């Protein structure tokens, strides 16, 4: 509704506006490029810091000196660092992260395989976190100082303070080992595995699309515990943030005006105050999503969830540096992409940024 209004406004200044819009886009593009470059510098440096000799890692310690020297040269290790970085850059642009020592596949094909599982988990967790966290925060702000507020604060702080890997382990101990209510780990029951291979890579969506309800419920059964635990962490953050955003709004004079006009509580809170925090909320939801990528590393390890996090930790365990650097780079890029996306949507829904 807002955007249609904006397109109809075409005054004499619209050409100038377009130019400044283009400049803004160019600037944010430059910012993203430098951030990406910085990301690559960091992963490159991390790769160089590794004490293990990359040549020996490739050919083994039985090889003779001649082979060693040849491979050393082939890998470009005799060249200056900036040339090596250039090669690294060229490899990354071609999506060539090298080969994984464990799986013997290229890292990029491995990443493509594990990536959807993580996105599925993190997205579901963000939805849970926002679905519970935002209303809780809003209600806490409206009923500041009441028991709801205190409860919300305690729930939030607990979410901030709980070691997520430990919570996952305890949930497995109680709900899997004692009561058998949830599966012990993984993404789906073995006998349902491979039944659905779909376009999205998310088992939940793919099984719906294929109409395989048994697969859907099996996948849902598996995802529920890890998604709820991660969602709780996101909820803690989001409820706290929405509470403080709402408090800020409720102090404003337009709220007083709205109340003086005789508007009911619901209209004041949701149609006036909440409308104004949507933009800020979007930014923190994006941040929460990025934060969850951290959580997935731990929770995937606990729940044997075959995603990026588990791939990363098993690569760490076997010092498979190509796989480690590829995963780290991918996670960094997802973060940047999410922030970029929230930035774009932000421009759409906040008229002040146009």
């Amino acid at each position, binding site marked *: 509704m807002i955007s249609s209004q904006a397109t109809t406004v075409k005054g004499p200044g619209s050409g100038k506006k377009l130019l400044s819009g283009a400049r803004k886009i160019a600037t944010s593009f430059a910012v993203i490029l*430098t951030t990406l470059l910085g990301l690559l510098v960091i992963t490159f440096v991390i790769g160089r810091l590794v004490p293990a000799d990359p040549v020996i890692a490739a050919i083994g310690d039985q090889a003779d000196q001649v082979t060693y020297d040849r491979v050393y040269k082939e890998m470009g290790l005799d060249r200056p660092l900036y040339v090596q970085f250039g090669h690294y850059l060229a490899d990354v642009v071609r999506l060539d992260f090298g080969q994984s020592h464990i799986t013997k596949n290229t890292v990029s094909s491995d990443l493509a395989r594990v990536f959807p599982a993580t996105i599925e988990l993190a997205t579901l967790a963000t939805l849970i976190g926002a679905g519970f966290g935002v209303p809780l925060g809003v209600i806490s702000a409206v009923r500041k100082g009441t028991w709801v507020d205190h409860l919300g604060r305690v729930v939030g702080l607990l979410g901030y303070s709980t070691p997520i890997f430990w919570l996952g382990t305890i949930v497995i101990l109680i709900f899997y080992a004692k009561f058998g209510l949830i599966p012990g780990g993984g993404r789906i029951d073995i006998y349902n595995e491979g039944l659905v291979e779909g376009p999205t890579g998310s088992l939940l969506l793919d099984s719906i699309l294929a109409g395989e309800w048994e697969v859907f419920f099996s996948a849902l059964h598996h995802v529920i515990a890890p998604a709820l635990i991660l969602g709780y962490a996101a909820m803690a953050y989001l409820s706290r943030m929405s509470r403080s955003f709402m408090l800020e709004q409720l102090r404003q004079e337009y709220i007083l005006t709205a109340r003086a006009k005789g508007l009911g509580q619901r209209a004041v809170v949701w149609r006036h105050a909440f409308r104004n925090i949507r933009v800020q909320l979007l930014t923190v939801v994006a941040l929460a999503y990025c934060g969850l*990528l951290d959580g997935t590393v731990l929770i995937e390890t606990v729940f044997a969830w075959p995603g990026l996090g588990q791939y990363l930790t098993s690569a760490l365990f076997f010092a498979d540096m190509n796989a480690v650097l590829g995963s780290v780079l991918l996670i960094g890029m997802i973060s940047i992409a999410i922030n970029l996306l929230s930035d774009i949507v932000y421009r759409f829904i906040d008229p002040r940024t146009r």
Partner: protein
Amino acid sequence: MTQNSSFTSLHNWLINEEFTSTRQARLHKMYVAWLSLLANPLAFTGFLVVLSLIVVAILAPAITSYDPYSQDLSRALQPLSWQHWFGTDEFGRDVYTRLVYGARTTLYISILVTIIVAPIGFLIGATAGYLGGWVDIVLMRITDIFLSFPSLVLALAFSASLGPGIENAVIAIALTVWPPIARLARAETLTFRNADFVVAAELQGAGMIRILVRHIVPLCAPSVVVRLTLNMSSIILTAAGLGFLGLGAQPPMPEWGAMAASGRQYLLDAWWLTTIPGVAILTVSLAFNLLGDGLRDILDPRNA
């Protein structure tokens, strides 16, 4: 009775706002902060837990009767008892003892990280805010690059390449903690950058270092201290996460995250091995959050 009245007069002296000396004014400020901490039961609880963590870490040998490293396989995996309050682990070591010594590891990591991070974050943020221009752009760009990584993943990558171990974990965590501090210090500096007292100091010929250290740092300090206290909790959780993944403190060193991780193999037979260290992590990290929250209410009432 006499003691009581001397307390009352001390209280009156401290609460009195007609100061006769700078010292009285300073003590008054600290006393009022202390009273507001006492008035906030949650924050005070956090304070007490943090205090007892420190006491436990210092007095570790005095409050345990076992050695955290000595193994006794004949006593492995014993449940909770009067001899072993929190049972024994797979090597027959007393879990209570290891928990107490683990407090040292936790404190060691979080204090070391804070000592490294506070001055670096301050320096980068305050310099960027004070100088502005391209220095600001470059420094903040670097900060943003570090911020764009989820912190545990960055810490994982660094400790993987530096090699496992507690010192490397400290470096890795520090690398992820400094950017928010720098951001905050910059924002705070910007609010004072053009204040009259800064301009006056500049006119008197004060150099940048002097202005930063004497005028800007003291004003940024409260919000940075709050941030650092709240950070303690995330440092502890990250350290525990690294320990859990085998990248932090190495065995046999007692560390809560690593203890919880090694207990997972015996989860069904010995629940206490994983549960108890986790409760310890949760308690301490919650305490730092409560304390930080309370400190913010006291030092920075805008966000209360």
